[in-house]
């Protein structure tokens, strides 16, 4: 525990940073959530056009919940370590971190946790409350399931961990590619699609079935399906186990890549 204590100042810095820019954060969020509202209407037209009540096991109400909860989990589990690290590598300021007696990844993790505490407290309640009110109005009864909500939170924490280490590994690519902006956009697009953030994996047939087992599904699809109550007890245990598995794998990969990258690091001046 005392080993971790030296990282708490990073968390405090992260909190302070987020509090300072919380108005910016909210405007940014309003811009991003616009996509959900666009799809809200598009899906309505899609369900209107379809002959059945459901598509691939999703009713329209399910779809609305899916849209907003996957937005929420995407936001909370988002990690921009790849960009931050890449930038430090390119401009050389990374040496300032390396000469300190602390772990490279841990100080990023703890600083981002500080950001997460603030963004979580700002958006979790409004979005879940909105979704639950919507479900209440549609179904005439309260649909919120407290144990599922808790499992959802556990799954989101795991998803964040996977995302963090995945991004860390990806950030080290900056060594080889020397380009951040483009590679980051490419990553975002591919991960969004493969993780089910743009459309439920259930819509993709056999390909979607395979995707469920890949690490991307653990980033977004798993927590959202748990929240919606689409998974039974057995499936929940299986997919949470899978998340832990991917978390361990990516933590190991990032350690390995860090070692390799540090050997190649050349900083001019400083």
């Amino acid at each position, binding site marked *: 525990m005392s080993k971790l204590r030296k990282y708490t100042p990073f968390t405090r810095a992260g909190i302070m940073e987020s509090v300072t820019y919380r*108005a*910016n*954060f909210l*405007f*940014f969020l*309003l*811009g*991003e959530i*616009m*996509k959900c*509202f*666009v799809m809200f*209407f*598009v899906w*309505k*037209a*899609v369900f*209107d*056009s*379809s002959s059945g009540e459901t*598509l*691939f096991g999703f009713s329209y109400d399910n779809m609305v919940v899916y849209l907003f909860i996957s937005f929420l989990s995407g936001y909370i589990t988002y990690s921009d370590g790849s960009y931050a690290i890449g930038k430090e590598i390119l401009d050389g300021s990374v040496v300032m971190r390396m000469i300190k007696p602390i772990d490279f990844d841990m100080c990023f993790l703890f600083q981002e946790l500080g950001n997460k505490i603030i963004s979580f407290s700002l958006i979790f309640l409004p979005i879940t409350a909105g979704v639950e009110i919507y479900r209440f109005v549609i179904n005439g009864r309260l649909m919120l399931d407290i144990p599922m909500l808790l499992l959802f939170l556990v799954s989101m924490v795991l998803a964040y961990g996977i995302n963090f280490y995945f991004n860390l590994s990806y950030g080290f690519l900056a060594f080889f*590619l*020397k*380009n951040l*902006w*483009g*590679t*980051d*956009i*490419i990553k*975002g*697009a*591919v991960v*969004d*699609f493969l993780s089910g953030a*743009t*459309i439920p994996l259930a*819509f*993709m047939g056999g390909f979607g079935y395979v995707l469920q087992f890949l690490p991307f599904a653990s980033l977004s699809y798993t927590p959202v399906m748990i929240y919606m109550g689409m998974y039974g007890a057995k499936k929940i245990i299986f997919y949470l186990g899978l998340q832990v598995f991917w978390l361990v794998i990516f933590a190991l990969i990032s350690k390995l890549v860090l070692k390799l990258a540090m050997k190649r690091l050349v900083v001019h001046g400083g």
Partner: protein
Amino acid sequence: MRKYFKLHRIFIAQDLKKLMEYKVDFLMGAIGFVLVQAVKILTLGIIFASIPALAYKVNGQVVDSWTFNEVLFIYGFSLIPKGIDHLLFDNLWGMGYWVVAKGDFDKYLTRPVNSWFYVLTEKFCVDAFGDLFVGIVLVVYSVLSMPADIAANINWFRLIPVAFVIPFAVMIYTSVKTATAAISFWTKRSGHITHMCYMTNEFASYPAKIYNNVVKTIITYILPFALTAYYPAIYLLRGESVWSLPVTIGVSAVLFFISQLVWKLGEKAYESAGS
């Protein structure tokens, strides 16, 4: 005026030189933008695989519907004015994010040209070729693969008024960015406000009829991105919404005027960072 055109050409030439130097950067950026669009189109394709056409219903009656090709056409068309603005006037984003906050705006004030014009044209953003490429490919592809009965509705003479309206559609994007970027003269940072308003363009890529009245009013008159995409596209396809063409010109002129006013007022309120 001639001076300004010449300046713009010089700026573009500078950025093209940069492009030759950093080919990988360009390639990555362009591939990124193409991929973002590819994912969205793939999503649309998956959705449309399970329905015959996108229908708009009132009380269970189908009022209007759009085939996959028509939706692709509207979507592709929306990328063209957006891409042109992105290509030529991307530099405005920097204003709200860091230029004013760091006091870098001083530079623009000391030059003997209009400050807005200078900021606007300083950067030529080649990433936008990704957007433009996808937009043009989608428009062409959707027309070529269209069922004959829908293609028969297209009168290619309508292309003339539509091409005439496109610069005004671009001006809608640029004016929204200008007005919101100018807020930073008072607040130091306003990039996130620009982002919020800009993202409203997401609504423009789909048939405007599917939205409720609040959204429809916003995207037609307040942040009028529907005028940049759905209305000209549907006019080209079916000859519907002829009214939208003069409205586009009028609304974009009003927006342009407002954005210039905000910019001028803001410039007076600007204080340097003092470093």
